């Protein structure tokens, strides 16, 4: 297969990314503006020997991808705000059972039904904390169809490497935007394979981890006769309802991510060498922010940009480094301040932080961001 260039929608690019890295199962439920991901998967999966199933709701979709992933298939679902809320239940199950899978949220404006056909970035904190209990999650963000293609592959790889559901956060504008997407030959794509234990069944325990705190898996139906539960469990996978076992399990769920943030966290820096004012942006808002940066540079303002690719875990190390060195951070996002709170936390009062907020339903005009940059 040759490298191809396709002129496709963001949602379609997301589905193509999944197919390109070997996704073989998709369970979903129609929802604007994520429906096109499901539609593409319904068409493409049978062509590559995979299965698309439309479930009765998003709780079932999420449960089905966990089951299929245990069965050995790379699995994905996609949704938007209302469906994302319903998926929270089994995202938690995926976290505690440690099941690799990918959940795409093409964000629309909420709360509730909100603006089904118009964009927002209001689910950033829900992605972080939406399921009950304390946990670590990985969430990636995309601001173009090409990035959606690339990041979907990256999400699958991280989910296999760290054994957890990985979230892909984009928004209605990126999802429905049509642009050129370069699709490399599939054999040139780096695919992180499932971590499979080589131990025989009598020695294998499902939650004994490797050095990086991630436990290798085994196949279902291969004689290992594993048990996995949503209850707090020990190394055998057996429920143990005590505080010490809760701590042992939680430490691993938390630190398998926290100890590996340098491997997980990715961002791009633009014009940062002499930057005094740094725009921290992600998703669709990174695009008008980039234009605002160019306009600010034209006016002689020393402006740079940090474009977030990994949202969770938050790239706090870099922001802590930058805070004492810059005059201010400008955070444009289509909500009333979510990632901005994280930037404030990491800056710890060492620089000025200005939120450029938006209620949703439209994207920023570069002038709105430029105006704030100019005032700082």
């Amino acid at each position: 297969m040759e490298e191809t260039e396709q002129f496709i929608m963001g949602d379609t690019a997301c589905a193509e990314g999944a197919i390109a890295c070997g996704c073989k199962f998709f369970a979903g439920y129609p929802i604007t503006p994520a429906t096109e991901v499901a539609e593409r998967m319904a068409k493409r999966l049978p062509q590559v020997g995979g299965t698309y199933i439309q479930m009765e709701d998003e709780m079932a979709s999420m449960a089905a991808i966990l089951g299929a992933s245990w069965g050995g298939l790379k699995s994905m679902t996609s949704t938007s705000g209302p469906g994302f809320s319903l998926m929270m239940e089994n995202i938690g199950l995926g976290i505690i059972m440690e099941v690799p899978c990918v959940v795409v949220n093409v964000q629309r404006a909420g709360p509730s039904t909100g603006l089904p056909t118009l964009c927002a970035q209001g689910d950033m904190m829900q992605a972080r904390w939406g399921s009950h209990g304390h946990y670590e999650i990985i969430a990636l963000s995309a601001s173009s169809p090409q990035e959606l293609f690339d990041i979907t592959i990256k999400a699958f790889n991280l989910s296999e490497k760290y054994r957890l559901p990985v979230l892909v956060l984009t928004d209605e504008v990126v999802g429905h935007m049509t642009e050129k997407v370069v699709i490399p030959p599939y054999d040139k794509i780096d695919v992180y394979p499932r971590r499979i234990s080589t131990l025989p069944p009598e020695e294998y325990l499902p939650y004994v981890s490797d050095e990086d705190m991630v436990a290798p898996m085994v196949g279902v139906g291969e004689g290992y006769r594993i048990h996995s539960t949503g209850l707090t469990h020990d190394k055998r996978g057996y429920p143990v309802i005590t505080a010490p076992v809760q701590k042992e399990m939680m430490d691993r769920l938390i630190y398998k991510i926290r100890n590996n943030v340098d491997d997980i966290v990715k961002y791009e820096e633009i014009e940062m060498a002499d930057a005094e004012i740094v725009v921290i942006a992600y998703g669709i808002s990174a695009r008008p922010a980039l234009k605002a940066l160019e306009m600010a540079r034209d006016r002689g303002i020393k402006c740079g940009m940090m474009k977030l690719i990994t949202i969770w875990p938050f790239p706090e190390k870099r922001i802590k480094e930058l805070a004492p060195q810059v005059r201010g951070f400008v955070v444009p996002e289509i909500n009333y301040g979510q990632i901005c709170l994280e930037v404030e936390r990491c800056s710890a009062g060492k620089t000025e932080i200005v939120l450029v907020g938006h209620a949703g339903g439209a994207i920023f005009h570069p002038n709105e961001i430029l105006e704030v940059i100019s005032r700082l």
Partner: protein
Amino acid sequence: MKKQGIKELNGMPGKHPLSDLLRDDRMPHIWCPGCDIGTIFASCLTAIHESNIDYNDFAVISGIGCSGRAAGYVKLDSFHTTHGRAIPFATGLKIAKPKMKIIVFSGDGDLFTIGGNHFIHAARRNMDLTIICVNNFTYGMTGGQVASSTPFKARTSTTPNGNFERPFNLAYMAAAAGAAYVARWTTLHVRRLTNSILEAFNKKGFSFVEVISSCPTSFGRKNKLGPPLHIIQHFHKISVIKNSIHPKDANLDIEKEIVVGKFVDIERPTFFDLWEEIYPPIREKRGE
């Protein structure tokens, strides 16, 4: 793999006859004295034992509740999932592992109240799963609250004056939604129940076995049904076997009459049959 025969093991001290299917390192179990889940669980394990299917080809999925704990006690690939979601989890696993026998073992509240929508859709798809439902008419684990299976006027902790809602007829609902196999027994119909579970394993498509069960601790006490043995003897006494009747006529009145039997045993194309029917032309068109 070599299976141990039940008879061979019977004489051995300290070992359960089905111990090769039990995680005996997890005993004692959480079920109350007098609870019927153990009987149903044992019937299920006996059916697995007698099926002549390799144990490694089975997986057991449960939801939440007393019955949901079954997955944790069976020494097979087993998953204890979220409340009501055992069936969609099993659906995903079955699609990934179509040759495996996937058993969903759970309770009435889990499968039909919080999980009712998943149940009817899996039946509609004729997804190749075996569903074993412990119907004890209540939420046992949380102390006996009203469920969609609680009989009219029955007392529960959340219907202190008696249940003012009408319950589902689970067998009728399964049949109406498209199940290929539907049976109902009480926990004293042990041999018939075990045979039904065996038939359900061998049935292509969605098979459903409802087991009328006592919950002496919660439902029994609140409704003054007497000691555990008395309750199941009563259920057995008032039960009438009516095989092959239309499940809408399968009356379930725990005071007067419990209709039991095998109500549905039909051939219907499964999810996988229809998938194969629809998709080969696409593959052929593309020259694969």
